[in-house]
């Protein structure tokens, strides 16, 4: 006789169902811990960028980790730019599971001042990258009340770009030394190039600035500042800034019919890139704009589609305003931070030291974000050498290095995003004549100062 027994299918009770659900939930949650950051293995987050950008950083981190016997390293690319990335990072920090290192495309000051990032000053002492090896204006973009919350490993450096061939066609000397030194000279020269066909702007010289992020550079060029970091006071409606915006507005009225909408309907005269919404090509690359202020990142993109209709262009120092005394530059850095809660802070800092000196050279050769540490021996980007020759590429690299050393402090406020939005609002109101210059800047000043005081209170 057989002892075989048969299992009788059992009905699942409600209690059984709930117990099974709980077990299933636990089983799903537990493995997520396995993907968490581990000791000895570096985890790097990047906000965005191209496939090449991701490949470069993955290679740099893997190379460093292998050399330092740190085990497998992970680079997470394309987590979303701007606000989405910051949200992800804050979420990871508050959940206690942040990456060891994160790149930021927005100033680390605001989150650093709130305790989101590790202060780096102690680690920098006696390291390969002490404080004194960084340009002060650049490092201030990572500092608040004397504490360093990040490092501007590389940066896009703002300078004037101009079309040498357009200059020469008008009989204007095209060497860097002859480029306008003052705003008045630039405005006077601009007229030479500006041609309207009815309400269509056929070609233009230079444009009054309307980019909120770079307004701090123009303010410094006019002897002013937007934020007094030492006294924690905004200076948005200072005399120099009122003078600056009045100058821009008069320029707009005189040369561009007082209407940026007409300019925008005629092409993209704002920067050197195609407009992602309207699809309009960049007037500079189309040979319809003699010059503009742009970041050095354009070096990596200018030869891509749409290919410029000319061969020779050059960079020059930013001209000085009526109340200014010397030229300054500005940057949009690639900041690196070590979030609070990193499992490998010392290894993360060692990686930043490597990246600041050796890594940034490799990075710059493939994507022209300018290495900022004073010890770096910069080599010209390969793409630039190929297109413009070694001599021009070396000259531009040297010029950008000089400009990186005269950067005006910017990105140094704990309410940077709020300030940027307020400036954007004021600039729009001024250019659309919705508000007089003084009133628009005054409103921005009052709102931003109030927000600063709110954040700093307590």
């Amino acid at each position, binding site marked *: 006789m057989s002892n075989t027994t048969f299992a009788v299918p059992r009905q699942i009770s409600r209690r059984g169902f709930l117990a099974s659900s709980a077990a299933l939930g636990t089983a799903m949650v537990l493995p997520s811990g396995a993907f968490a950051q581990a000791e000895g293995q570096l985890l790097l987050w990047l906000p965005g960028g191209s496939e090449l950008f991701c490949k470069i950083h993955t290679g740099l981190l893997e190379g460093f980790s292998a050399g330092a016997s740190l085990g497998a390293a992970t680079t997470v690319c394309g987590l979303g730019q701007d606000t989405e990335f*910051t949200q992800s990072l804050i979420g990871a920090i508050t959940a206690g599971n942040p990456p060891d290192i994160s790149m930021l495309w927005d100033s680390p000051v605001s989150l650093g001042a709130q305790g989101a990032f590790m202060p780096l000053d102690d680690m920098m002492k006696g390291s390969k990258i002490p404080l004194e090896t960084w340009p002060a204006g650049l490092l201030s973009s990572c500092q608040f009340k004397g504490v360093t919350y990040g490092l501007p490993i590389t940066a896009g450096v703002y300078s004037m770009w101009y079309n040498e061939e357009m200059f020469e066609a008008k009989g204007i000397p095209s060497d860097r030394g002859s480029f306008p030194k003052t705003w008045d000279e630039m405005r006077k020269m601009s007229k030479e190039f500006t041609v309207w066909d009815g309400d269509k702007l056929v070609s233009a010289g230079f444009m009054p600035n309307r980019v909120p992020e770079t307004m701090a550079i123009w303010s410094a060029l006019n002897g002013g500042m937007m934020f007094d970091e030492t006294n924690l006071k905004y200076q948005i409606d200072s005399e120099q800034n009122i003078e600056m915006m009045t100058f821009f507005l008069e320029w707009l009225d005189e040369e561009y019919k007082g209407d940026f909408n007409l300019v925008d309907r005629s092409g993209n005269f704002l920067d050197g890139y195609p407009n992602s919404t309207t699809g309009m090509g960049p007037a500079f690359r189309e040979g319809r704009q003699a010059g503009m202020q742009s970041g050095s990142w354009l070096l990596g993109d200018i030869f891509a589609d749409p290919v410029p209709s000319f061969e020779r262009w050059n960079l020059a120092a930013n001209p000085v305003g009526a109340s200014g005394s010397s030229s300054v530059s500005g940057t949009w850095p690639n900041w690196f931070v070590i979030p609070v809660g990193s499992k490998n802070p010392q290894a993360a800092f060692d990686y930043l030291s490597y990246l600041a000196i050796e890594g940034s050279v490799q990075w710059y050769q493939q994507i022209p974000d300018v290495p900022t540490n004073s010890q770096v021996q910069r080599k010209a980007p390969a793409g630039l050498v190929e297109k413009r020759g070694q001599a021009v590429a070396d000259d531009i690299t040297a010029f950008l290095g000089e400009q990186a050393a005269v950067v005006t402090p910017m990105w140094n406020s704990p309410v940077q995003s709020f300030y940027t939005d307020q400036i954007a609002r004021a600039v729009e109101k001024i250019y659309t004549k919705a508000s007089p210059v003084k009133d628009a800047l005054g409103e921005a000043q009052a709102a931003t100062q109030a927000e600063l005081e709110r954040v700093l209170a307590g």
Partner: protein
Amino acid sequence: MPITSAPPEAAVLPRRNRKAQRGEARAGVLFALPWIIGMTLFVAIPLVVTFYIAQTKFQIIGAPKWVGMQNYEALWSDPAFWKSAQNTLIFAAISVPVKLIIALGLALLLNRATALSGFYRTVFYLPFLMPAVAGSVVFMLLLTPNAGPVNIALEAMGLNPPDWLLDPKAALWTLILLSLWPLGVETLVFLGGLQNIPKDVSEAADLDSPKRWHKLVWITLPLITPMVLFNLVIGIIYSFQVFTQAIVIGGTTGTPAEATLMYMVVLYRAAFRYFNMGLAAAMATVLFVVVLILTLLIFKTARSWVHYEGGET
């Protein structure tokens, strides 16, 4: 004479019945439990936490710090709050009724039995399936001032088209126009109501008056007032929360010149751009109260204008 009263029904029920009733009640609660848990975890608790955070200084990193009514006071003096509230009110006041009228018109057309009825119903529902971001980008391309097909067509007709999304005077109206595009849900709700109108009532109305608008005003509209109420309440709630189109078109500053700055955009930027969770929570609380009051007012007035077939109001 002694006054006697009958014992409660429950008291005379056999014990087995009472036990069965209790078991049934327990089962009912258990079956509803997932919803109750979800409602508690994802609606009730966040709501209470929002009211609490609205009275704190909370920058996400670090613990909230009690500040009382400071966030509400800050809202009161914030020009962006008032500008966005004004834009949102204009948006809601215009887009909701216009949307209802167009959706009703479409539903009346789709209610006609033709060979292509099913096709048209699908076509009118399709825009609702498109993600709002994609839809907004498509409209931005269509309305590009110089190269957009809309302006090219208008110029070809000898008209002088506006800078739809660049001119501060036109941008809010363009946003309202865009909100009228996905009408699928409202139209379907009206269509459902129209198809529920009894045939005998409809035929009797046809016999009483040959004029179609008589039938529409005196028969059709009263019979679909429950659907009007539903679409009105949902429309108001959604219009006060307009976000995706506004942020895609105007960014966090409501370009141009704050013309597209909507309430939810200001709330979003306070929370996730400035990390001022206290202010954002205060804004959310104000919005909650305003929408609640409006909804209650509509329900109160609904007693006088909504017709239910069973006589309920």
